[in-house]
C-alpha cells in the first residue's frame, strides 16, 4: 500500500505498459519534453526517449489520424488530446475512421489505439476547456470508452485499455490529477467492462462515473448520517457498459439517480436513464432522476462554473427528497 496520485498512477500505467510492450508509444502535444500539460507523462521522455514519447505539432485531426495508421501497422499508439474539448476537430478521424475500420473492411484489421484525454470543470478554464464530451464517443459504435474515477482505476483501466483490440477513448478528469489515494496496485480490481460498487446501500442507488463518483460518495456519507443508505456504482467504462451491476442494484433499491457532469440533454445520463427504465421498469418506485450538467456552456467565472455541474450538495438534496417521497407514499 502506498499513497499515490491519479496523475502518477496514469504515468505508472504508461511506464509499465511501455516496458512490457515495445509497440506502445505516446504521441501528442507536449507529451515529451514538457511532460504533458497536466504532467502525466513527466519523466517518461527521459526514460523512453523521443521515439516513444513523440511530441507532435498542434494538429489534432492528424494526430488521431496518424494514430489510426500506426495502429493498423502493428503499433499501439497512445495519442493524447490535451483537452477533450478539442475532440470536435478529430471526430472524423475518430468516428469515421478509427471506429469503423474493422467493420468497413470486413474484419480484416482493427485499430488498437488509445486516445487519452481529460475533461471536466474545476479550473476556470472557460467554455472551450471545461467540457464533458463523452456522449459523442458513447454514441459512436466502434469506440470503447473508459473514464477512471479512482487512483487504482487510473492505473488499471489504462493498462486494460492498452490491451484492447479496438480503439479506446480514455477520458481523465482534470480535477482529479492531484488526488491521492492509498493504493495497492497488485490488489484485485474488477476486470475491464465491469463496474465497481463503491458503496452498498439499500435506500437508493447512484449510478455515476469519473469525478462524480467522489461527489456521490461524499453525498452518500452525509446521507448516511441521516439514516439514508445509498449505493454508489462507478461505471468505470461506458462502453462496454456493465448493465448487470446496475440492474442488480436497481432491483434491490427501486430508486435510482444517475449522475454525470456532461450536459444533460442527449448525454450519458439520458442513456443510463433510458436503459434503466426500459430494463427495470417494474422495479422502479419512481422515475430515475438525472442529475447532470446544465445545458449551457461553462463560464470562466468561478461560481458559475461550479454551479454548472452537479455538486455533492445537489446530489445529497435530491437523494434525500427521493427517499422522502417514498416514505411519504
Amino acid at each position, binding site marked *: 500500500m502506498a499513497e499515490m496520485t491519479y496523475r502518477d498512477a496514469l504515468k505508472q500505467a504508461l511506464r509499465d505498459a511501455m516496458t512490457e510492450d515495445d509497440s506502445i508509444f505516446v504521441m501528442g502535444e507536449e507529451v515529451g519534453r514538457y511532460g504533458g500539460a497536466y504532467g502525466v507523462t513527466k519523466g517518461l521522455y527521459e526514460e523512453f526517449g523521443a521515439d516513444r514519447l513523440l511530441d507532435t505539432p498542434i494538429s489534432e485531426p492528424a494526430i488521431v489520424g496518424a494514430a489510426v495508421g500506426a495502429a493498423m501497422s502493428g503499433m499501439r499508439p497512445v495519442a493524447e488530446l490535451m483537452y477533450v474539448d478539442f475532440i470536435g476537430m478529430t471526430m472524423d478521424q475518430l468516428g469515421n475512421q478509427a471506429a469503423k475500420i474493422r467493420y468497413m473492411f470486413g474484419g480484416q484489421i482493427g485499430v488498437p489505439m488509445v486516445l487519452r484525454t481529460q475533461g471536466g470543470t474545476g479550473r476556470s478554464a472557460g467554455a472551450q476547456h471545461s467540457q464533458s464530451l463523452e456522449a459523442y464517443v458513447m454514441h459512436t459504435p466502434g469506440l470503447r470508452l473508459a473514464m477512471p474515477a479512482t487512483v487504482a482505476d487510473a492505473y488499471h483501466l489504462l493498462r486494460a485499455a492498452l490491451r484492447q483490440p*479496438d480503439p479506446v477513448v480514455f477520458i481523465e478528469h482534470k480535477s482529479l490529477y492531484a488526488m491521492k489515494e492509498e493504493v495497492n496496485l497488485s490488489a484485485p480490481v474488477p476486470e475491464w467492462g465491469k463496474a465497481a460498487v463503491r458503496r452498498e446501500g439499500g435506500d437508493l442507488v447512484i449510478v455515476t462515473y469519473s469525478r462524480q463518483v467522489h461527489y456521490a460518495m461524499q453525498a452518500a456519507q452525509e446521507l448516511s448520517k441521516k439514516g439514508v443508505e445509498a449505493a454508489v456504482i462507478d461505471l468505470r467504462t461506458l462502453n462496454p457498459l456493465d448493465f448487470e451491476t446496475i440492474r442488480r442494484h436497481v432491483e434491490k433499491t427501486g430508486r435510482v439517480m444517475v449522475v454525470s457532469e456532461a450536459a444533460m440533454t442527449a448525454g450519458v445520463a439520458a442513456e443510463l436513464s433510458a436503459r434503466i427504465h426500459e430494463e427495470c421498469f417494474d422495479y422502479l418506485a419512481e422515475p430515475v432522476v438525472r442529475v447532470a450538467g446544465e445545458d449551457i456552456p461553462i463560464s470562466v467565472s468561478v461560481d458559475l462554473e461550479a454551479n454548472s455541474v452537479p455538486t455533492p450538495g445537489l446530489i445529497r438534496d435530491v437523494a434525500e427528497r427521493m427517499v422522502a417521497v417514498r416514505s411519504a407514499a
Partner: protein
Amino acid sequence: MTQDVNMAAPAAAASGSNTELLPMYRDMRRVRSFEERVGELFVRGQSAGSMLHLSIGEESAAVGVASLMRKGDTFTTHHRGHGIFLARGADPNRMMAEIAGKESGYCHGKGGSMHIADMGLGHLGANAIVGGGIPAVVGAGLASKRAGRGDVSIAFFGDGAMQQGILYESMNMAALWDLPVMFVCINNQYGMGTRIEQATRGVELHQRARALGLRGETVDGLDVRDVREVAQDLIDGGRAGNPAFLAIDCYRFFGHARMDKSPYRSEEDETQGRAKDPVKFARQALLDGGADEAELAALDGEISAEMDATIDFAVAATPPPLTSMFRDVYASDQPEPEPVRTRIDRILAVE
C-alpha cells in the same frame, strides 16, 4: 477465376524499348477495362448504390506509382481508388464482388467501392471522406521507420483534397519526422463539378509541399513512363526518409459518379481532356516501338475476357448474411452489440 498479373506478354511487343512499357500498358488496360465493367455493373443494377467513381483517364497515375510498390509498402486511397488497388495486384473478382456489396468481396460486402481494403497487399483502405485516408500514412510511416525495412507508405488522393487541412497537417508531420511517406495527388482537374481553378488560386500544387519542407513535383500523366520516372525518384527518397509530394496531371474522363453526366463542363473541355489518354498513348508508343497490332489486340481481348468474368463473378456471388451485421464492430473475441430486436424482446417479455 483469378487475375493474372504475370500474364505472359506477347513476345514481339516486349522487345526493345517496349520491355518497360508493355507491362505498364497491360496494367493500365486492365484498370480501364475493369472500370468499364464497374460502369456496366451499375447499369445492370447490380452494384451497391451509385457512388461509383471511375478512374478512367487516370491509369498512368495508378500504374506509374503502384508498379513501384513492393511487399511491406502500404497505401491508402481516396474514393476513386479502384485503379490503384488493381495496379497494386488486387483480384478483380473480389473487387467487383465488393463493389456489388457481396460476401465474397474484399470486405464481405460491408465496405463497397469506397471502403475497399486488403491488408495482404498493404491497402490500408479507400476512404469516402475527402482527405480522410491521408494521415494514416503518417502513422504507417512511423511504424515503418521504426521497423527500418525501408518500406514506404503512400497516400493517394484527388485535387479536391488539396483543400483539406488535414493534408497540410500530415505533410508537416512527415517532413518534421523524416518519414518514409509519399503524398500523391491525382489531379484530374475536377472535384465533382468544380474545376481546380475554381477551388484554389495556387495551382502549382507541389509548391505547397515544398513550403512545408517536403520534396515536391508535378508531372504530366500522359506518358506513364514519365510518371514512373519521377515517382521512382521520389519513392526512393521516401524510403530513405525524405518524404515527398507528387501531383500527377490527368483528366477525369467521365462524370464524378455514375449519376453525373458532367453538365458543368463543355464538350470542348471533355474533348481536350480525353485527348490526354494515357492508355491510348502507351498503346501508340508500343506500336511505334515495334509492337504488332494483332498481338496488342490479342492482349486487349484477353484482358476484356478477364474483366467480363468479374461481372459474372459479382452477380453470382451471394450477399452477406443478415447475421453478419453485428460482426466486426469489435474484435471477434468481444461480444457483438445487442440487436435492437433482441433488446425489445427482452423488455416486452419482462412485462
